[in-house]
């Protein structure tokens, strides 16, 4: 008998979740998750079809052709923009979580924790264009004109609060007494970090890395001001779509989607094979 105080249950005298058998519950869950995955993935999958479509405008695809991919391979500025986006994303996914990690470690030692968190969250609210513009102004004042570093700084600044908050969430399970115990047992701070803290916050760090990569790859409004003429994919696509029919940008979108599916599919396949191997062993 359930001592649950859920009002619904009290009213109904039973818990609604026991009405369903486990099997149908499982099916409902799967359907629910599948629906949302489909919802999120619908635009990218459609982009793949659009990239193969015969028409050069956006419509429900009805044809099949590789013409856009051809154009994509010929388009040097597009490929340059993609390289640049990737480079910036890699830099951001290393720098932002690193800085965030240091910040989180310092956070644990401060007394003004609320102020600290608040100060980390506040910059998130600065509108992208204004942040980009003010950074540009700063760079001009100090006479800095290197495009890649300027854009990278903009991206890292943008991703940092995200990484910080995410790592902070996972850091919450690291308890002070465990750290004290580790120190008592003779570990210095670096060892404590490496052997005690890091394993526990690994999911958080991985999430922060993924977040930073994704945020940097998609970053538009700040990049516009800081790129100094060197386009990234978002700014290039934007400019191109204003000017003229640009089928090749759809091709590159389609390509990245297909590649990511392949990678994740491969990962799942590998996991499946290794688990079935374990089963047979």
């Amino acid at each position, binding site marked *: 008998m359930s*001592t649950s105080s859920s009002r619904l249950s009290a009213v109904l005298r039973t818990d609604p979740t026991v009405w369903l058998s486990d099997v149908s519950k499982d099916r409902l869950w799967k359907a629910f998750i599948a629906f949302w995955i489909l919802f999120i993935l619908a635009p990218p999958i459609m982009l793949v079809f659009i990239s193969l479509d015969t028409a050069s405008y956006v419509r429900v695809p009805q044809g099949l052709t590789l013409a856009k991919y051809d154009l994509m391979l010929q388009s040097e500025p597009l490929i340059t923009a993609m390289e640049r986006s990737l480079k910036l994303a890699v830099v951001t996914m290393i720098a932002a979580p690193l800085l965030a990690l240091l910040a989180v470690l310092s956070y644990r030692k401060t007394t003004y924790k609320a102020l600290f968190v608040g100060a980390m969250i506040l910059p998130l609210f600065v509108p992208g264009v204004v942040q980009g513009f003010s950074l540009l102004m700063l760079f001009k004042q100090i006479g800095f004109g290197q495009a890649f570093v300027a854009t990278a700084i903009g991206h890292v600044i943008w991703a940092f609060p995200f990484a910080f908050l995410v790592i902070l969430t996972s850091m919450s399970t690291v308890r002070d007494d465990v750290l004290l115990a580790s120190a008592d047992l003779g570990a210095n*701070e670096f060892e404590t970090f490496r052997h005690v803290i890091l394993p526990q916050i690994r999911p958080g760090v991985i999430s922060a890395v993924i977040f930073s990569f994704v945020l940097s790859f998609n970053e538009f409004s700040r990049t516009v001001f800081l790129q100094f003429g060197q386009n990234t994919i978002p700014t290039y696509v934007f400019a191109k779509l204003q000017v003229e029919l640009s089928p090749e940008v759809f091709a590159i979108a389609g390509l990245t989607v297909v590649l990511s599916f392949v990678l*994740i599919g491969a990962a799942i396949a590998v996991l499946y094979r290794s688990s079935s191997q374990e089963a047979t062993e």
Partner: protein
Amino acid sequence: MAHDNSNPTGSGDRSGVDFSAQQRLPAVIRPLVDNDRLRFSLQVLPWLSILGLFVFLPLAAIFVWSVAIPQPFGFELGFTLENYQAFFDSYRVDTFWTTIKEGVVQVALALVFGFPIAYYAGVLKRDSKYTFPLMLLFAIPFLTSYILRTLSWISFLGSDGVFNSILLFAGVINEPLGWLLYSTFAVRLGMLASYLPFMIFPAWLAMSRIDDEILHASADLGGSPLATIRHVVIPLSIPGLLIGAVFVFVGVLGESVVPVLLGGGNISLIATIIDNAVNSARLPLASAISAIVLLFAVALLLAWEYVYGLKTVGEI
């Protein structure tokens, strides 16, 4: 949390300090480690200086510019409230409130739909190793350009798009539904598709941190899954949910693509207004609007601190 190594530890040696921990460090940085204050400041320095220079300095500049006197091609430093006036006296203030409202709507939608997804991944299926790759699927859209993603919604929502075609074919409707596209509905749909993952990931992270034992204990005590969710999962994952809410809300505040492409001129968000101001070289106006947004954010943070406490984000 500086640990004082001068207390005698270890066995046997009662007359002095145990330096074995330090001795495992390379000689070069040993003096650094000894001095606690130095070590702490080294930890703080990199990110604090970067943040200070590139985040907080421009933040202060925004407030300064917001009271600057606008000139035809720029501005002059000074003090005037005309920028704020231009904001409050015009359609812009309505747009601001619309944006806040849409932000709340998006947070609500993301919570309602994101929570179960995170629960599934973080609690129900936490032991399955397929969970991680599956969740990664939610990140795939972000590897394509935001504009293209939004444009592809047009092929779903348009008069001859996927949804209308299916409905027409099934005979449910006689004429294509016009409100699917170039409407507030389309904007909300587009934004949800973009920001749902921002809620899912922190919530998932928070839920996966909940100890197995606690969940088992709750079940042992006779709690149904629903009760466990209500009394155990939700309270413990609130920090993650709050962070997800912040990400989603911030996203809406900065959203300028979706309303333009999918809104049909029926809905406009504050980021577009700010963009317009910057591109008409009206920086003081743009700064004033940004200052209002920031003040609103401060108010939010204060409310958060008062109601729940900001530091609980970092504690379990």
